[in-house]
C-alpha cells in the first residue's frame, strides 16, 4: 500500500507551536506560578562599588523571616563558571554595587519590602576606567603573517579609535525563579536559557549530587544572552532560601533590580591601524581591543575570544595582529548578549573600512569588494574559507536592492544618509567548544510519533517549532506527531546551552541523526506497531564535528567555527539639523544563514536583531555613576518604540550548508552585528564624524562642532 505523499514542513512557515497559549494569555511564565506554602524572596545588595563589610544589622521584627548569608551555603560559595572567582553571596569583600550579600524570605511581600537591613562598609578604592585597571581577566593575541612588512607595503596608513558602551538586554520578562525543596534536594523552575548551566552551578553551591538537583525551564519572556549565565545566581539564591526555610521560594526581580544587578554587554575601546594600497587593498591590520569585564570573570574570556576572532570582519588580509584584553572594573559583571563580542569589534572594523574609503576617496562598496573573503582565502586564524562564503553575494544583493551607488550620490549633501555594513558571524561554539560540550540529544518514540528531549529552550526564537520541523521531515511524519519535552534536567539530556546561534544548526543536527536512526529502526512500521512489538525506543546521539575541523586554543590558529553566516545591511537615515536627531528611515538586511527552516521565524530573528542593533546604535546608553547604573528604569534606559523603528526589508540568501540540518546555519545573532555600523556609516555619509556608540544627538552635535559637516580626507 502506498503512503500518501506528505508535504515537507522544513522551509515552510509552520505556525509557532505555543503560539495559541501566548496570544490567549494562557502561557505560564514564572511569575504566573505559585506553590502551596510559598515564600517570597528578596536580595539585599551592596550599595558601594568596593569595600569590606564591617557589620550587618537587621532592623525588623524577624518573626516569619528566613535569613540567609554566606555561612548558610552548604557547598562552595561560588557561582560555578569558567573561573570560580565570583561568590554567590559576598563574605567580606565587595567588588561592585548591587553585589548580593544577604537573602530574606517571608510569606508577606509587604513585610519583606519593609525589612530594613543596615550594612556598614569600610570603603575601598574602586576602579571604573578599564584603561586604568591592573587586573586582566584574560588576554589573547591572534597573529598571521607579518604586520611590520604589511605596513611597509602600504601606500596609506589609517588609524582610528572606536568606543562602544554597555547595552542592557531588556527582555520584557525580568529574571525570576521558584525553588522548591524536594527531599534532600531542590527543584528550580525559572526563566532561563540553559538549564544545565544552572544545574551545574547548584550542585557546587549546595554540595548536592546531580540527581538531587532538578532544573526546569518555564516559558521564558526573552533572553538574548541575559539569561544564559545569570540565572545560576538567582537560582542559587532562591535555592538557599528554600533549603533553609523548607518552603518553596519565589524570587522575581522587578525591572529596576534587574537592570541594576544583572549582566550587560561588554563595553569596549577598539583601536585600529590599517595599511592599505591606494586602490583599497588591506596590506596590514593591527587591532587592539580593550573590553570591560566588570567585577568578576564570568564569561569574559569567551566574549574576548569571539570579539577577537571577528575583529577583522569578513575581510582577507595576509598580515594581521589582533591583541585583546578583558579587564576587571568595580562594576556589575558583564556577560553574554547576542553577538557576544562580535558586534563590538565588527562595529569598529566597519567604521574603519568606511574611513579607509573616505581617506582614499574610494567608493565604500569597492573597498568592501576588494577585501571581502572569497572561497580559498584564509581568515586571521588561518581558517580556509570554503564554498559556504557569501560575502560578495550579500554585498552585491544589498547594493543592487537599495540601488546603493546611485542613491548615495543623489543623497550627498542632503539631510539623508545612506550607509552599509558587511559582516559575518561564526555559528556554534568556538574551536573545539562543541566537541568539549559533547552535547547529547534524545528522541523518544511515542504512540503518535516522537518526542524530542533536549535541554535547548524556547525563548522566543522559535526553537520548539524549528526542531520539531527538522524531526518531522526526517522521520517523514506530520509535525503534529512530534512533541517537544519541556526542558527539565530530570527528563532531558544535556544538549548544551541555548546560545551561540547553535540550537538549530548543532542540536537540530544531532536530532536529525536521532531521527534517521529512529526511521531506520522503525523500518516502515508505525510507531504504535513498533511499540507493541518491541517496546520503548529512545535514540540518543552525541555531537559529531564536521570532518576536517581543528583549532589550536594555545596559538589561536585553525578553524574557529564550523561555518560562518554572512550579511550586508544598508541603512538609510534622516537628519534633523535643528535637533541633531538621526532617525532611521529604512533598513535593508541581506542575510545568508544556509537556509531558513521556518521563514517567518527566521525573518523574526532578522527583524528583531536589526531593531535591537538600532537601539545599540542610537538610543541605548547605560549611565554609570560611581559604578552604579543611574538610569535603571525604562523611562531613562531607552529601547526603540514602534516610532523609533523603521521598516526592515529582509532578504534571505540561500547557500545550503552541507553539515547543517537541511542546510541550515545559525541565525540568532548574525542580524545584530551589522545594524549599528550601517547606521553610523549612514551618519558618516551625512558628513558627521561619529566613531562611538550610541550616536546620540548630543554626540552628533559635538562632532559637528568639532569637525563640521564634511569629513576631511587625510593623506
Amino acid at each position, binding site marked *: 500500500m502506498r503512503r500518501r505523499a506528505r508535504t515537507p514542513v522544513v522551509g515552510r512557515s509552520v505556525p509557532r507551536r505555543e503560539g495559541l497559549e501566548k496570544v490567549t494569555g494562557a502561557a505560564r511564565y514564572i511569575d504566573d506560578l505559585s506553590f502551596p506554602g510559598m515564600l517570597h524572596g528578596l536580595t539585599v545588595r551592596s550599595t558601594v562599588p568596593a569595600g569590606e563589610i564591617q557589620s550587618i544589622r537587621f532592623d525588623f521584627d524577624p518573626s516569619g523571616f528566613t535569613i540567609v548569608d554566606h555561612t548558610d551555603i552548604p557547598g562552595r560559595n561560588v557561582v560555578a563558571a569558567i573561573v570560580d572567582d565570583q561568590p554567590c553571596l559576598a563574605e567580606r569583600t565587595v567588588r561592585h554595587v548591587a553585589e548580593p550579600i544577604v537573602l530574606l524570605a517571608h510569606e508577606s511581600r509587604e513585610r519583606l519590602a519593609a525589612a530594613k537591613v543596615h550594612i556598614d562598609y569600610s570603603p575601598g578604592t574602586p576602579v571604573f576606567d578599564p584603561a586604568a585597571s591592573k587586573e586582566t581577566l584574560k588576554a589573547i593575541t591572534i597573529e598571521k603573517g607579518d604586520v611590520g612588512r604589511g605596513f611597509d607595503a602600504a601606500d596609506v596608513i589609517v588609524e582610528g579609535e572606536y568606543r562602544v558602551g554597555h547595552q542592557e538586554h531588556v527582555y520584557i520578562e525580568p529574571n525570576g525563579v521558584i525553588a522548591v525543596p524536594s527531599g534532600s534536594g531542590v527543584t528550580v523552575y525559572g526563566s532561563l536559557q540553559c538549564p544545565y548551566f544552572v544545574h551545574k552551578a547548584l550542585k557546587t553551591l549546595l554540595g548536592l549530587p546531580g540527581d538531587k538537583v532538578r532544573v526546569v525551564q518555564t516559558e521564558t519572556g526573552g533572553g538574548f544572552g541575559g539569561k544564559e549565565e545569570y540565572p545560576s545566581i538567582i537560582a542559587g539564591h532562591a535555592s538557599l532560601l528554600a533549603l533553609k526555610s523548607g518552603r518553596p521560594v519565589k524570587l522575581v526581580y522587578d525591572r529596576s533590580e534587574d537592570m541594576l544587578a544583572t549582566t550587560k554587554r561588554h563595553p569596549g575601546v577598539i583601536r585600529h591601524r590599517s595599511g592599505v594600497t591606494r586602490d583599497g587593498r588591506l596590506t596590514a591590520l593591527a587591532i587592539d581591543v580593550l573590553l570591560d569585564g566588570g567585577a568578576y570573570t564570568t564569561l569574559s574570556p569567551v566574549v574576548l575570544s569571539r570579539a577577537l576572532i571577528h575583529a577583522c570582519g569578513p575581510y582577507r588580509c595576509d598580515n594581521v595582529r589582533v591583541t585583546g584584553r578583558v579587564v576587571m572594573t568595580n562594576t556589575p559583571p558583564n556577560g553574554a548578549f547576542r553577538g557576544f563580542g562580535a558586534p563590538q569589534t565588527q562595529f569598529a572594523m566597519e567604521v574603519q573600512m568606511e574611513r579607509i574609503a573616505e581617506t582614499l576617496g574610494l567608493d565604500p562598496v569597492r573597498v568592501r569588494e576588494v577585501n571581502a573573503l572569497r572561497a580559498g582565502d584564509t581568515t586571521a586564524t588561518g581558517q580556509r574559507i570554503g564554498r559556504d562564503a557569501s560575502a560578495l553575494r550579500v554585498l552585491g544583493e544589498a547594493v543592487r536592492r537599495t540601488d546603493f551607488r546611485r542613491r548615495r550620490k543623489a543623497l550627498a549633501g542632503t539631510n539623508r544618509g545612506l550607509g552599509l555594513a558587511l559582516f559575518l558571524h561564526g555559528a556554534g561554539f568556538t574551536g573545539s567548544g562543541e566537541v568539549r560540550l559533547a552535547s547529547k540529544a534524545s528522541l523518544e518514540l511515542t504512540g503518535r510519533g516522537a518526542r524530542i528531549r533536549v535541554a535547548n529552550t524556547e525563548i522566543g526564537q522559535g526553537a520548539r517549532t524549528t526542531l520539531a520541523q527538522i524531526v518531522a521531515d526526517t522521520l517523514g511524519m506530520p509535525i503534529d506527531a512530534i512533541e517537544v519535552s519541556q526542558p527539565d534536567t530530570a527528563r532531558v539530556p544535556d544538549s548544551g546551552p541555548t546560545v551561540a546561534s547553535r540550537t538549530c544548526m548543532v542540536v537540530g543536527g544531532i536530532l536529525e541523526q536521532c531521527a534517521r536512526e529512529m526511521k531506520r529502526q522503525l523500518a516502515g512500521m508505525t510507531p504504535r506497531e513498533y511499540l507493541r512489538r518491541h517496546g520503548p525506543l529512545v535514540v540518543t546521539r552525541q555531537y559529531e564535528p564536521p570532518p576536517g575541523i581543528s583549532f589550536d586554543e594555545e596559538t589561536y590558529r585553525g578553524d574557529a567555527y564550523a561555518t560562518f553566516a554572512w550579511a550586508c545591511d544598508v541603512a538609510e537615515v534622516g537628519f534633523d539639523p535643528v535637533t541633531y536627531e538621526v532617525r532611521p528611515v529604512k533598513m535593508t538586511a541581506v542575510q545568508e544563514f544556509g537556509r531558513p527552516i521556518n521563514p517567518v521565524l527566521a525573518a523574526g530573528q532578522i527583524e528583531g536583531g536589526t531593531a535591537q542593533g538600532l537601539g545599540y546604535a542610537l538610543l541605548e546608553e547605560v549611565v554609570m555613576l560611581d559604578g552604579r547604573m543611574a538610569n535603571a528604569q525604562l523611562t531613562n534606559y531607552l529601547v526603540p*518604540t514602534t516610532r523609533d523603528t523603521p521598516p526592515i526589508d529582509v532578504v534571505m540568501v540561500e547557500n545550503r550548508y552541507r553539515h547543517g540540518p537541511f542546510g541550515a546555519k545559525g541565525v540568532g545573532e548574525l542580524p545584530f552585528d551589522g545594524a549599528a555600523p550601517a547606521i553610523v556609516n549612514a551618519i558618516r555619509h551625512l558628513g558627521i564624524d561619529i566613531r562611538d556608540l550610541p550616536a546620540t544627538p548630543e554626540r552628533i552635535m559635538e562632532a559637528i562642532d568639532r569637525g563640521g559637516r564634511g569629513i576631511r580626507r587625510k593623506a
Partner: protein
Amino acid sequence: MRTPVSAFEHLEPRSLRDALRLLNDERPPVPMAGCTDLYVSLKFGTLGGTRFLNLWNLDELRRIRVERDILSIGALATFGQLIKSPVVQKRLPSLVAAAREIGAVQIQNRGTLGGNIVNASPAGDALPVLAVAEATLVLRSLGGTRRVPFTAFYTGYRQTVMRPDELLVAVEIPPVEGTQWFRKVGTRAAQAIAKVVMAAVRAPRPRVALGSVAPTVVRVPRTEAVLASGGSIEEAQAALQTEIHPIDDLRSTAAYRRRVSANLLALFWRQTGQGEPRA
C-alpha cells in the same frame, strides 16, 4: 512589584465639596487623579503620604467648555479627551500637539491636565503651552475660589503656590491671538521625556515658553521683547541664553539644551513668519 498598600487609606469623595472637606485637615490626603506617576513615586520614595484622595469619579471636574469666550478645561480632563475635543482642537491646537506627545496612548488615556500642572515637573509637556496661552488656574478650597495666573503658579523646583487644602479644578484660557507653535524634543520618538520643550505664539506680542531648561517652566520676556521690537533672530537667541538655565542630567547636557533651544526659536520664527525674519 506589588506595592505595599495595606497601611494606605483610600478616601473616595462623592462630590467636589466632599473632596474639599477632606482636604481641610491637619494631615491632608494626597489627591489622586490619573495616577500615572503615583506608584513610581511611591516606589522611589518621593511621595511620602499614606492617605489618598481619589478624585477620579468627580466628573464635574472633567468638563471642557467655552464660556464667555474663555475655554475652560476641567482639571481631570485626560490628554486623550483633549486630543479628541473639537473645541480644544480649534482654540488651542498647540495643547493637542503637546497631548499627543505625552507618553503614549495608555498614558494619555489616564494622565490629566491638572495632574501635569500640579506635578510641577519642569519637563511637563503641556506647561509651556499654558504659559504662552496665559492661562489662569482655578483653585478651590472650603474657603472659596481663587484664580492664579499660570505664570505666577510655580515658585521653584516642583513648588507651587497651592495650599494643602486647595484643589486645582479648572484651567481657563482666553482666546489666543496669533499662530500657535509647539515642539518637543524628546529622548526618543515616543514615550519620551522632554530634553527641551517649547511652545510659542506668533503675534504682535510674541510669546515663548520653554520646559526642561530651568527648575520650572519659563517664559522668556527679554527674548519676547527682542522679537516684538523687530530685533534679529540672532539677538533674540542671545537674549534667550540669558533667560534659560539648563543643566546636565541623565537625559541630556546643558550645552545641547542651549543649542537646541536657540535652534527651536529660529525654527519657530521661520515657520510662523512670512519668509526671513528681519535682520
